[in-house]
């Protein structure tokens, strides 16, 4: 028998898509039954109370969670998000219901031992509810009480040898696509760069010292499966410099219909026979390809590496061999000054471990941002306020036409004094000799 009636939530159990309500009820029932005979360290019925407070929100159409409080583990300024219910008498099981972020392995591969160990800790010391995963990529343990935070952290670090993720004004938990582990498009080892930089910047991740949050994301190719360019302050997106590799026989196989285009992604509808001219050549954004009926040719100098042709013919076309990545800086969601996409800063870096060249750029950006950034200002906003030129200056990257979609359309140029012969200190007396007032 459920603790609270949930007539509205019950209506979210029907329909084909997995129901989170059914899942929460299943957890509530499991805790009530307690087959392992655990001495639950936080209220046994907390999933019931979570369903109860959620039902109240469904009735009132307002949240019942208060502003976070300052809770955490000793020595860290992030990784725990304090959360309190604003109706604690009605729902005592979730009166305190803090979140812990646990660092996920990059690419989110797991074995069942890791997951079961984590579940066991969370069974005893938490709500038994999680987010797999939070938006930034962490494993999110959803709901425990203050007195359990150090206990959980102790068990995570001592028994599972895993750490907390980031929250607050610090480096947030970095995230990578699955990269070379299972994708032929990956231009560098995204998981390795993500892992290495996460390890190297543990201090920045755990101890807030920045004006606001800072996110790294690593995409293996311009398809952008982890949305690095849209979601991360520092986006590393795989690319290459040389020719796309062409297997002409396989191109013919696509043209002849022997291989389904786009890896079979359009199989749900009859789109007619594959038309290489209409579907590939004419859609190339830089018009760098030609098909003469027997041979596909690509003018590499004109290619902008959008991935369309490679996505369309994965068996015939492959990324080039001179591989690396582009770095784009400053993406963010709308708060405060409007959404921003990452802006291209480094057209190409080689991406070889231990990634010192990448770290050099990161650290120069951080130094500048920690000096100049205002409270709660993302790096993208600092860039907007103080100019892209300033970012080039502090990172010592020379300006190139790659950096812009188009040159400026106003002549309000800031010249540096040393760029102007004679500088800015001028002789008014001499001027007045030439020009009467």
């Amino acid at each position: 028998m459920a603790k609270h009636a949930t007539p509205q939530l019950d209506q979210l159990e029907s329909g084909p898509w997995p129901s989170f309500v059914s899942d929460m009820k299943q957890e509530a029932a499991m805790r009530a039954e307690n087959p392992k005979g655990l001495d639950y360290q936080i209220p046994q019925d907390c999933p019931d109370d979570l369903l109860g407070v959620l039902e109240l929100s469904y009735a009132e159409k307002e949240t019942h969670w208060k502003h976070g409080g300052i809770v955490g583990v000793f020595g860290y300024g992030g990784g725990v998000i304090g959360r309190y219910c604003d109706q604690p008498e009605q729902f005592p099981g979730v009166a305190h219901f803090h979140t812990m972020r646990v660092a996920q392995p990059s690419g989110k591969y797991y074995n069942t031992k890791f997951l079961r160990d984590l579940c066991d800790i969370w069974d005893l010391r938490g709500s038994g509810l999680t987010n797999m995963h939070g938006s930034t990529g962490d494993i999110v343990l959803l709901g425990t009480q203050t007195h359990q935070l150090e206990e959980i952290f102790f068990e995570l670090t001592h028994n599972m040898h895993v750490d907390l993720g980031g929250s607050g004004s610090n480096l947030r938990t970095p995230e990578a696509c699955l990269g070379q582990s299972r994708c032929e498009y990956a231009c560098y080892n995204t998981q390795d760069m993500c892992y290495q930089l996460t390890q190297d910047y543990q201090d920045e991740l755990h101890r807030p010292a920045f004006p606001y949050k800072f996110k790294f994301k690593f995409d293996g190719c311009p398809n952008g499966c982890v949305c690095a360019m849209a979601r991360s302050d520092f986006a590393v997106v795989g690319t290459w410099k040389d020719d796309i590799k062409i297997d002409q026989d396989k191109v013919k196989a696509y043209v002849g219909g022997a291989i389904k285009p786009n890896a079979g992604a359009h199989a749900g509808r009859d789109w007619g026979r594959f038309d290489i001219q209409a579907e590939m050549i004419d859609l190339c954004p830089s018009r760098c390809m030609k098909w003469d009926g027997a041979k596909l040719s690509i003018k590499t100098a004109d290619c902008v590496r959008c991935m369309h042709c490679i996505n369309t013919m994965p068996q015939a076309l492959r990324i080039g061999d001179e591989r690396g990545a582009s770095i784009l800086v400053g993406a963010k969601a709308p708060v405060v000054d409007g959404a921003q996409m990452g802006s291209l800063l480094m057209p190409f870096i080689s991406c070889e471990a231990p990634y010192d060249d990448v770290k050099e750029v990161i650290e120069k950006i951080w130094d500048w941002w920690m000096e100049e950034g205002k409270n709660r200002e993302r790096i993208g906003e600092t860039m907007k306020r103080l100019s892209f030129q300033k970012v080039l200056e502090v990172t010592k990257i020379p300006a190139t036409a790659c950096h812009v979609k188009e040159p400026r359309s106003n002549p309000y140029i800031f010249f540096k004094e040393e760029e102007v012969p004679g500088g800015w200190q001028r002789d008014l007396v001499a001027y007045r000799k030439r020009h009467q007032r």
Partner: protein
Amino acid sequence: MVFISSGYNPEKPMENRITDIGPHKYDEYFPPVIKKNLGKWLYHEILEPGVLMHVAENGDKVYTVRVGGTRTMSITHIRELCDIADQYCGGYLRWTTRNNVEFMVTDEAAMKKLRDELNSRKFEGGSYKFPVGGTGAGISNMVHTQGWVHCHTPATDASGPVKCVMDAVFDDFKNMRMPAPVRIALACCINMCGAVHCSDIGLVGIHRKPPMIDHQWADRLCEIPLAVAACPTAAVRPTKVEYNGEKVNSIAVKQERCMYCGNCYTMCPALPISDGEGDGIAIMVGGKVSNRISMPKFSKVVVGYIPNEPPRWPTLTNTVKHIVEVYAANARKYERLGDWAERIGWESFFKLTGLEFTHHLIDDFRDPAYYTWRQSTQFKF
């Protein structure tokens, strides 16, 4: 309850303390076929919706079965996923960035058994536990935020409306009839802790009433200058007010300047903004993150407000479904929703979808607004 110590000694927090060890190394969890072929994959095929086959240079194959997952997930559910992975996949599994779960096997017959097993399991309430799908030119799983389940600033729930939208487009999770991938995402407020601003269809919770001011608590709970600085439209200012016969430091809000972003509330709990009547969801469309064919772009607001209609959000789900159907019927192969809207023109988008164009949809936030107005006589009547 008897307190069970982990071994942590609160008297000596630094004793045996382990810190800054980070995540586990990614390759500890690679299934053998993945470990062996790192960086050596040749090509892939989508064999059917939800099933991928990757082929390596040496001829090795890995079959991946992808299932939709709910982001909010119990340990009972995770343990069931583990049971399946132990039975079929040597104890390995992975999650995608869109809350899907992937199981990998090296044998086609095993893949089919696994796929059927996953499709067969249901919750007591009747929904699928592990629906196979979410690949290619279809509708993948939604990424979303926390909502009323556990967040303090939401303007809507997240898990609930996501469940309703995914129910409505479920056939297209299990099919690949779209012109191109359709990525739907939901953020329960404009903080957008999910990538809603670059989605084919982005659903975002919005408030419509300026914050209330709790004069009793403002000076005690908040750093007032931080709340003032947080306002992007300079609607918030410090003030002194009379409260219970006393002059107290507090906050004033110029209501006509407020666009209800809630940023001041983030800084100051004495400025509550949520409101059952005022809150709801805006629909944004046409964004993308991929560089394929066209450059990445932001989603644009095409429906300024839909009320919160728990528990099933019928207006929201019907509108999303309708936009998907009009797009599917009109766009060209490979054309993402935003590319289609730009090719036909946004005036045609509103004509074809029948969505009403109102003044709410014209940008008026800062300089970029001007660049979205039409500086041309080229338009469609």
